[in-house]
């Protein structure tokens, strides 16, 4: 699945953000095109802050962000054209129907009118939203709302999908359908960077995993590489993750 020689989908260099304490502190991450990259870390590690800076929702104090060669800080509009952002709280309008929501998002991304209808209906069918397509979103369950938000994130066919804890509160069936959609997208060449606390998801889906702690990247690599770095042998990702987070982060990232 991983295309090592492909260009970079996302390149973060020296990224920093300070609130009342450093939230992100000199972060370097590279996500390759067509790669499924998962960011792990304890609460407050700086994962969400990092992703919000990438999507232009927060201004970094310093550092650079490049999305498919586009400088996301100097030309955010161009970078946003190829990105999609999905948070754990579905960003949808209660008084719109899923169909209207997708049309609205398509309008925001300036997609040609002819292409929108086919694409929205495909996404609705793909995510099993057909029975709810014409109901107001306020009446939908958390899982269905999250699927609507995911459909919204995919409607403009982004090349980089950024997800922050997308499985929070989803039932098993909804979570599986979201995972399937993401896998399909990656298979088609799309890149995904995602945070999650569900280590099982990271273990099964990630091409590479980055572990953040205290605003820094403390380890990065495939699951096997992370195991080797911690000397954990055949330990689970949970054991490996906890060993990484609990170790002295001041030693800097353990590069793959």
């Amino acid at each position, binding site marked *: 699945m991983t295309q090592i020689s492909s260009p970079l989908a996302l390149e973060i260099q020296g990224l920093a953000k300070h609130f009342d304490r450093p939230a992100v502190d000199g972060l370097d991450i590279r996500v390759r095109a067509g790669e499924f990259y998962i960011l792990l870390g304890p609460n407050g590690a700086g994962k969400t802050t990092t992703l919000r800076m990438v999507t232009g*929702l927060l201004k970094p104090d310093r550092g650079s962000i490049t999305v498919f060669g586009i400088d996301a800080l100097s030309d955010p509009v161009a970078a946003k054209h190829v990105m999609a*952002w999905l948070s754990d709280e579905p*960003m949808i309008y209660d*008084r719109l*129907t899923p169909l*209207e929501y997708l*049309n609205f998002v398509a309008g925001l991304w300036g997609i040609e009118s002819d292409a929108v209808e086919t694409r929205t209906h495909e996404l609705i069918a793909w995510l099993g939203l057909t029975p709810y397509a014409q109901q*107001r979103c306020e*009446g939908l369950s958390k899982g269905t709302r999250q699927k609507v938000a995911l459909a919204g994130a995919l409607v403009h066919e982004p090349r980089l999908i950024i997800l922050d804890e997308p499985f929070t509160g989803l039932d098993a069936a909804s979570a599986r359908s979201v995972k399937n959609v993401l896998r399909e997208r990656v298979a088609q060449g799309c890149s995904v960077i995602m945070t999650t606390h569900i280590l099982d998801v990271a273990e099964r889906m990630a091409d590479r995993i980055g572990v953040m702690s205290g605003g820094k990247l403390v380890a990065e690599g495939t699951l096997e590489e992370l195991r080797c770095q911690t000397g954990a042998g055949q330990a689970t990702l949970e054991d490996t993750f906890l060993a990484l987070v609990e170790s002295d982060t001041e030693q800097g990232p353990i590069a793959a």
Partner: protein
Amino acid sequence: MIRAGTLTWYAQHETRLAWRDWAWLLSGGRRRRGYAVTVGLLAFFIFVHGLAYLALAPSVDFTAPPDKRLLVTIGGTLILYGSLMLSQAMEAVTRAFYARGDLELILSSSASVERLSAVRICAMAASVAAMSLVLAAPVINVLAWLGGAHWLAAYGVVVALAMAAVAISVVLTVVLFRAIGAKRTRLVAQIISAIVGASFVIGVQFAAILSIGTLSRVALFQSAVVLNHAPDSDSFWWVPVDAVMGNGLALVVVLAFGALALAGAIRFCGPRFGDLALAAGGISSNPARTYRRASNFRTASPGQALRRKEWVLLLRDPWLMSQSLMQLLYLLPPFFLLARSFYGENHRAALAVPVLIMAAGQLAGGLAWLAISGEDAPDLIASAPVAAARIWRAKTEAVAGAIGIVFGPPIVLLVIVDPILGFITFFGIAIAGASATLIQFWYRAQVRRSLFRRRHVSSRIATFAEAFSSIIWASAGALAVVNFGIAMVPSAVALAVLAGAWLLAPKRP
């Protein structure tokens, strides 16, 4: 130590919640601001006492024995004030069923639902009484100062009215639940509450407008028509009025009536409270409404998509619509009154100029808040490939479009009647609307649009600046009808208000 689960324990819990709700409403959650607001309220309270003195001292003859005119005046005032209390009570009861997040917790516990409902209904009565007493206190205190301590009995009548208003509201809500179901009750109850509340404000102004040649609100009650149709002085209907004037027995009767009504409501509603609350909770988060024809957002322009989104969301929220339009309803009577006094009979069409300008400023403020601060998907908009300036422009255009739709027809009518009036109104509406929108933009704060009712809490400066700007632009419009040169004075003041709001606005990176 109070034992858990008892009536006293519930009462303590409710009192604590109510107090914190009030404190938050006044301070917006900031302790330091709470002190400033308290001092400001005290100053305002003293000021209102002064106003009450100026209004009552010259017009009430305390030495003369009470006659039918006085009975009718006090009775009419009680009816109008009672309608306001009934509106407050309806609002409180609706909130108790639909907007309390702790009902599921309490109903899933082993606590007694009857006790809870009894305390909650009493808490509503206490809250309505407290609010009404604060509003009535200046008049009652001044009456007692000028006419004697027996007027203090009016406090008791206000408390009795509060109990009766809550009892009526509770019973009405339960009956609505039964008749039209939990789903529609919320909207219908809110509409009834708004209409009843508006009837107070409009009734007071209507009374003044009908009293031609005077600004007195009481003149209508003293007219021959009303006096001839009023019951005789010894009628039972005057018991509440006798109570206001200090008749001890009448006060006991009125208080007993209020208490009995409240007890009856508790008895009637108590056993049903749990079921009704659960029914309300069940529908509030899950209304499935289907649209066969989807609104068309399929355009190549993000600006168009944003504008349409704002309009569709507004049209699909009858509660927000009614809240916005209700502001206009409250404004109309006083402005008609002022304009009528100002222009006389020669410029009938000119009456509309300040009314429309003021209403446009207020409506634009509400709509701008919804579009700018009440954005439910801020991350989606911010992560879209659209420049921030274009987003703000589209949202401003959405507000301007809605204002145009509402005020376009009256402007056209005015242009037909008198082109100069039409031009003044158009210009006034545009500038008042733009001012209110700018203030909302400078003081924007991302919140859920469902918090529209509390939008005034987030920034008092923005609230006052918006109100002053609308009022002053309306005054400028009113003066422009007579003399363009004089209109420059309030226009300069309005611009100064705007500049002040801009200078005080939070600085953003």
